[in-house]
């Protein structure tokens, strides 16, 4: 369950300050996205180093979800650069617009950047266990036995070891979301993306999911998340980005952004929470 006491994030996680800066896992520069005439993203940059937990906040329509989806190319950005582990993704312009040059490269990149969705999106024709071992076996080439072993550990970690053989339709929303987190973890990704992971849940189920995410942050997982849970964001984030109308309006450590906001809009946004 969520603890409401403020945890000092720098105490509970490996501190990047002491030694040289941690390795850069994901870097995007000047991401632009347009839907028709609407400029949803007007050039956003982000650098995630190992252990970073970056939270994107902003009102609906600010482009935060679109930006997150650009990070693993579920949306194709119209402009900007993208690098994972120092490996750039090259784009080329065809008559369908700007698309990645090499589909294989994109698939590899996506297997390094896992995503947890607002609506869980577990595959409904597979049991929870089958959902978790699917990508390790068929994308990463692990043996079935290895994948199952790993999956059982992950299920224990998210508190669902009893539910391995259940189908998604037999699970509560909170259980489905924790299962989806286990599915994302199974790929042992460099970066995990969370797209409003608790927005579709009943209030009483939110706590369990946040607890799992908190543990991941404490383990030093690199995460980028979109959320409306401000207390949670304050507790676990290393950095918070406030997006407004497709631009980063304010950015910095959580205390600075949330407690001493500089812009009026952010102040207004925070006061309505």
């Amino acid at each position, binding site marked *: 369950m969520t603890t409401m006491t403020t945890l000092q994030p720098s105490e509970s996680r490996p501190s990047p300050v002491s030694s040289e800066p941690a390795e850069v896992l994901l870097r995007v520069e000047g991401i632009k996205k347009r839907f028709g005439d609407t400029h949803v993203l007007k050039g956003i940059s982000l650098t995630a180093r190992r252990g970073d937990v970056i939270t994107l906040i902003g009102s609906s329509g600010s482009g935060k979800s679109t930006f997150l989806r650009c990070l693993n190319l579920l949306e194709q950005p119209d402009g900007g650069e993208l690098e994972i582990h120092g490996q750039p993704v090259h784009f080329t312009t065809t008559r369908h617009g700007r698309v990645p040059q090499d589909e294989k490269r994109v698939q590899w990149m996506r297997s390094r950047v896992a995503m947890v*969705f607002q609506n869980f*999106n577990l595959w409904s*024709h597979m049991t929870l266990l089958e959902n978790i071992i699917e990508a390790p076996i068929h994308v990463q080439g692990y043996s079935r036995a290895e994948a199952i072993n790993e999956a059982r550990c992950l299920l224990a970690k998210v508190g669902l070891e009893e539910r391995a053989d259940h189908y998604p339709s037999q699970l509560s929303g909170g259980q489905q979301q924790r299962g989806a987190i286990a599915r994302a973890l199974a790929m042992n990704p460099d970066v995990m993306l969370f797209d409003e992971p608790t927005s579709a849940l009943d209030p009483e189920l939110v706590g369990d999911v946040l607890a799992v995410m908190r543990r991941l942050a404490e383990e030093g997982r690199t995460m980028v998340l979109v959320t409306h849970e401000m207390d949670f964001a304050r507790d676990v984030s290393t950095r918070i980005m406030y997006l407004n109308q497709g631009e980063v309006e304010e950015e910095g450590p959580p205390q600075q952004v949330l407690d001493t906001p500089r812009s009026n809009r952010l102040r207004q946004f925070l006061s309505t929470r």
Partner: protein
Amino acid sequence: MIDTLLEPLTAWLAERAIFTPDTLAVYWQGIETTLSLVSLSLLMGFVISLPLSLARGSHYGWLRRPVQAFTYVFRGTPLLVQLYLIYYGVVFIDDVQESWLWPLVKEPFLPALLAFTLNTVAYTTEIFHGAIVNTPRGELEAAKACGMSRSLIYRRIVFPSAFRRALPAYGNEVILTLHASAIASTVTLMDITGAAQFVYSRFYAPFEAFIFAALIYLVITLTLLYVLRRLEARFNPQLRGVRKQRRKIMAFGNAIPQKP
């Protein structure tokens, strides 16, 4: 009391003696004909519909439109007309009477098989296409986000889940094809209905002849339904709980197919 009631009945039956070994053999042959016609056309229909349903949803117009036109025409006209077109029309194909095909198409079996296959392909293609299109978007995105390739997504996510979604509608199509096959008797094929017509004209006993045929169809239908139910339960285990509850509430009759 009962004897006096039964007496005229037994007398009446004895007088007619419709269900002799001879007529039963006619019905048995009818069953064989119906079953082979239906199973062959369903089998071929299934195989042909798989690629067609993909073409039906293709981004390329040259691939999609012909399939669309085909299903539109074959679903928009009566099977009887299609059967007549093929059966009576095949004679008029140039030189067909001299070709090696003639001995095959002269008999009604192959033209009927062709008509039924084309017809069931049209419906099955739309069923499969609908199931593929209705794959939940989020599940596709999740697959993409895991780094799956297009072909892997189709193989592991789209097809298995589409098959499960298509199963009830496809089962319906199986039973409707069985029922539609009764039309084969109109082109002199001795299927179950053909056998009934034969017995009717021989004995002028419409009730016995057609009710017996109806019972045979009913038994085959219920058997098929049972098998389809088992298949559905096997492939949709997540629905098992729901289904059992539903079955308790409704009588079994509701399972019988709706027309597509």
